[in-house]
């Protein structure tokens, strides 16, 4: 079910500004890959090119290739809408649909994609909420609005919503940065469980978090403010944090800048 991502020569722009330049990497299926780097280095932009969300931003455009298994996301005739169904996303701030109930939030993606019987929907919603470790907390109030939950619960609701449509890849854009430490821990545990089923890519500002949850880590950097961000290196997380091959990575990790 999970798929491999192969990026080659990817460059992304906001209007005429080049945000990231010439990035190539491979993300293995059923693994967690973390993106780290200083603010403004383009790691979130890069993440958003992986499900064609970048081009939603006014002026956003992309050059290069992103292969999902063998299929180019940016190939001719590819519908960005179907790309986003294959590659799910969880955002920095929890964003459940404020006017929908908890149940409807999780079912939202399914309802878009086809006719499900009520019983099928019930099953999938329950399974997804269980998958997001939220079922026990909300099973008695599935018809209450999702906005009534705590921040951490809302974020897990968003994860449940994303995994309900069974994407091949799950992108997470600093999913814990708006949460307290306990909620963060819950999400990190969840990531560890989800990687059995999905290819997970997570952007994080928190290096301990990257070390805790990820199998591979990619370090992004930019030469100077206004310059495009670049991929410095990607390697096994253990190596990045113990013995990185590039000096800049070691400087960043040991807190000498950024």
């Amino acid at each position, binding site marked *: 079910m999970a798929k491999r991502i192969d990026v080659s020569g990817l460059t992304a722009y906001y209007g005429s500004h080049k945000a990231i330049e010439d990035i190539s990497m491979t993300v293995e299926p059923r693994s967690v890959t973390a993106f780290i780097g200083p603010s403004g280095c383009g790691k979130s932009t890069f993440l958003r090119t992986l499900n064609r969300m970048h081009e939603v931003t006014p002026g956003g455009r992309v050059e290069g290739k992103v292969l999902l298994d063998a299929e180019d996301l940016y190939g001719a005739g590819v519908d960005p809408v179907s790309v986003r169904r294959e590659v799910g996303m969880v*955002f920095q701030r929890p*964003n459940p649909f404020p006017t929908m109930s908890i149940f409807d939030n999780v079912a939202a993606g399914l309802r878009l994609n086809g006719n499900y019987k009520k019983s099928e929907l019930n099953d999938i919603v329950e399974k997804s909420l269980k998958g997001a470790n939220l079922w026990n907390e909300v099973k008695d109030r599935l018809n209450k609005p999702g*906005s009534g939950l705590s921040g951490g619960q809302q974020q897990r609701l968003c994860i449940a919503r994303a995994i309900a449509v069974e994407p091949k890849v799950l992108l997470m854009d600093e999913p814990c940065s708006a949460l307290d430490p306990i909620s963060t821990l819950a999400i990190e545990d969840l990531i560890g469980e989800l990687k059995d089923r999905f290819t997970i890519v997570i952007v994080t500002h928190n290096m301990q978090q990257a070390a805790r949850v990820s199998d591979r880590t990619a370090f992004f950097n930019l030469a100077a403010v206004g310059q495009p961000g670049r991929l410095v290196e990607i390697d096994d997380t253990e190596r990045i944090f113990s013995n990185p091959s590039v000096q800049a990575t070691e400087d960043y990790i040991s807190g000498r800048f950024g």
Partner: protein
Amino acid sequence: MDISTTTDVPPSASPPSLTERKRAARGATRPGDRIFLGLSRGSGILLLVIMAAIAVFLTYRASLAISRDHGNFLTTFEWNTNLTPPSFGIAVLAFGTIVSSVIAMVIAVPVAVAIALFLTHYAPRRLSGPIAYVIDLLAAVPSIVYGLWGALILVPHLRGLYGWLDTYFGWTGILSWEEGAPRTMLAVGILLAIMILPIITNVSREVFRQVPRMHEEAALALGATRWEVVRMSVLPFGRSGVISASMLGLGRALGETMAVATVLSPDYDIHASLLNPGGGTFAQNIASKFGEASEQGRDALIASGLVLFVITLLVNGAARAIIARRKEYSGANA
């Protein structure tokens, strides 16, 4: 904010003495402060007085008229105010006001919402800015110009539409046509719709623009098409705003005078068909009947104006209430 560049009082201009500072601390005891506060508070109170005076004087003159009314003010189907005793009633006017406004809303609200969506989510960005600006300007076109255009340009163009409606929907009775001039409730409704379109569009556009980006991205990331994004994120978020925008438009349609007076060919009867001339609205009746009205006729018109006043107050009050609720709601989710 850099103070020295934005204030007209550089610190050196008025070096305050110690006694002045002490007085400043006591605030309103300075004569200048007292006068200024008095002036501004007085203006606020004046507004309240004006509102009260409107209600009081209209009610007073209206009560004079109604006490002389030989017919039933609510149910009489005529407006003979210069007779002795006078006989008049607002039934036809109330009916016409409501019917024309309802037609206007039925046409204008969906179109306005669609245009607002067009401007915020569909049009190329280079196009949407100027168009929004032009629609803004169109909201400022005086109603008499709409009236002139409606009577001289729109009405002649409606003949074809009327014949067509009569052919296919004449059997309903509501849309049957006897080949008269199309200066009827439907024409009024269409013209009112065109008039209130800019205001409803503008307010709805503002609301749609405020939809948080993250709600739209949530839908996009689930693989929603643009229409599904609109349906899942934009419309639910903007619903109460659209309702209040529509109420504002409705308030305008209810009180519109000149555009109705120029287009409608009135009488004092309720007609089943919207395509046959006749009927009237509160505001149109006041404008049309004023010239020939004696003093007691004017009082009768004031009485009908009071009813219109109350109706628009209720509609606007409802709109404000919805806006106020929306503020709480969006604050909780910000």
